[in-house]
């Protein structure tokens, strides 16, 4: 087990290094930020001075090397626009994004799995078919459009929920969270629901497919032949089998939820890292873009790694190192 974990760790670090290089290269090819930050009237001397000050005159590899050295110390450059350390900017906004992503995932799980179970157990009933039709709608609807419609209905027409921004926050372990206040919840409701929609539909379909397959298996027949009540057959035998791929998917999709928050944050003006990214791209604030990508890549790699290791815990057949069975 441990050997496997170490190997994965090594792979992850390699990927991290590779990504950082690619990101660095790519972002620095965008354009010349000097044009943005320096007065267009400035003469060449001014530009020269600004270039040197921002370190943009050195060859790319040198810039990368300097960058790596600084990165190791936690310094990922200063934002061209805000003039504070990029990493600080990202970390300030990260809790908002993570909160949104987390709440959205919870919503998707709490609604998606039960619905999928029902759809899988009664696939030909009205309810089952309705759920499936709903799920098709759910992942076909473009997220940003749904957000728009939500705002139209709940903010403009009904006036129940605020259309943008984050609500009042409370500090938990030093991290500001907004789901513990009523105001916070009101602001969270639409964005979280919006973000959850895609994953919810996916989960419904996944759970349904898993259930349909599981029901046909021999161990379900055997469980019934033992005279077990249906709720145990479904709740223990079937559920435990389908949970393994589902948990894996949820874990892996968590990263994608965080990324997709970019869109939701743009619509609802949620003060997270996604909105920051879009603005930075438009303003060519390279250090922030780089810092964002590195943080996201790190988060992803960590998530993938954890899910991998977790999977081997959940599925007893995959546990490496325990006494292997016969055929």
């Amino acid at each position, binding site marked *: 087990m441990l050997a496997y974990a170490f190997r994965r760790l090594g792979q992850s670090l390699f990927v991290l290094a590779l990504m950082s290089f690619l990101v660095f290269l790519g972002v620095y090819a965008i354009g010349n930020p000097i044009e943005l930050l320096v007065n267009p009237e400035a003469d060449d001397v001014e530009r020269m001075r600004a270039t040197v000050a921002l370190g943009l005159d050195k060859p790319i590899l040198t810039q990368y090397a300097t960058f790596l050295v600084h990165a190791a110390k936690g310094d990922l450059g200063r934002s061209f626009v805000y003039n504070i350390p990029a990493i600080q900017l990202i970390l300030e906004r990260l809790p908002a994004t993570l909160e949104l992503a987390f709440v959205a995932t919870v919503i998707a799980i709490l609604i998606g799995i039960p619905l999928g179970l029902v759809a899988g157990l009664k696939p030909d009933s009205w309810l089952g078919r309705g759920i499936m039709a709903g799920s098709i709608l759910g992942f076909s609807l473009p997220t940003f459009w749904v957000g728009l419609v939500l705002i139209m209905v709940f903010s403009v027409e009904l006036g129940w929920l605020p259309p943008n921004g984050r609500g009042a926050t409370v500090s938990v372990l030093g991290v500001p969270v907004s789901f513990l206040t009523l105001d916070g919840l009101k602001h969270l409701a639409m964005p979280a629901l919006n973000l959850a929609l895609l994953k919810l539909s996916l989960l419904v379909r996944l759970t349904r497919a898993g259930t349909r397959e599981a029901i046909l*298996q*021999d*161990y379900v*027949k*055997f*469980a*019934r*032949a*033992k*005279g*077990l*009540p249906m709720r*145990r057959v479904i709740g*223990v*035998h079937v559920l*435990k*089998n389908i949970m*393994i791929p589902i948990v894996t998917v949820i874990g892996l999709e968590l990263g994608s939820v965080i990324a997709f928050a970019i869109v939701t944050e743009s619509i609802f003006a949620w003060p997270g890292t996604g909105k920051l990214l879009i603005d930075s791209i438009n303003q060519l604030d390279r250090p922030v873009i780089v810092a964002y990508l590195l943080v996201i890549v790190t988060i992803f790699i960590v998530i993938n790694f954890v899910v991998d290791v977790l999977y081997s815990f959940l*599925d*007893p*057949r995959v546990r490496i190192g325990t*006494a*292997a*069975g*016969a*055929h």
Partner: protein
Amino acid sequence: MSALLEVEGLKTHFFTKDGTVKAVDDVSLSVERGKVLGLVGESGSGKSMTGYSILGLVDPPARIVAGSIRLEGRELVGLEPEAWRRLRGNRVSMIFQDPMMTLNPVLRIDTQMVEAVRAHHAVSREAALERCREALAWVGIPSPEERLRAYPHHFSGGMRQRVAIAIALINRPAVVIADEPTTALDVTIQGQILFEMQRLCRESGTGLVWITHDLSVVAGLADDVCVMYAGRIVESGPVDDILDHPMHPYTRGLLDSIPSRNTPGKPLSQIPGMSPSLARLDAGCAFRERCERAHADCHPAPAVARPSPLRTLRCAHPLP
């Protein structure tokens, strides 16, 4: 009657959009205390479906349409599902063919055994575990403690099937239905399991229905035999009687195709043709297309006859 299980005129049909499939069409059999009944037939003959019907595991689009199943004198057909469930795994149990998939791969052995006990008896987990150890000992699994805490994939096929047998016997049912339990195992293991099941049943007085396509298995194991074809029992009786004096051409065909009964060097004899589609049965004898003794009056199908007190036969032109 000392019969633990009595099935009469059982009909289980599938209602699909391609037509009605008569999987079990007027089947009658009985099992006595401590005796073994062999139910023999090809794939598609309806023998498994008979087993499922007895257990009440018939799901839509199939349905028991007629007949009676009496377990220890209690009528099962028409019983409400919850009542049937209480008997399932308790007074009548089933063992399936593929031990690899019968046990749930993500649950421990003890979980799967204990739940079989506690579904029918309100006992503590400890008491249930005690029963489990007992049951494992019956089927010859040593050091039950470690086995209980293991997962199915830690066991070989033969072991898994023994566990399945232990689970089937754990509540000391009156009747056990074994659906080709040794087909997927090595031949050597097969022999062991056959022997042990026979012993267990004799010792505990449990009735055993052994479903198989292999007549040679039945020869060594069963007391009585029912031969099934296209959803009907075509012949039944004590095993020695049937093997020595088969009356139905199909039974004869089955016997003749056993390799050890053929002369070395000569081509193996076969039953010509294919088994019929159960959706396209007509009113005649289902075997007549393949039978060399077929005649015009094999249509309509002959009724069940009793050529001797212990034998039944469905044939218009039996072997002499």
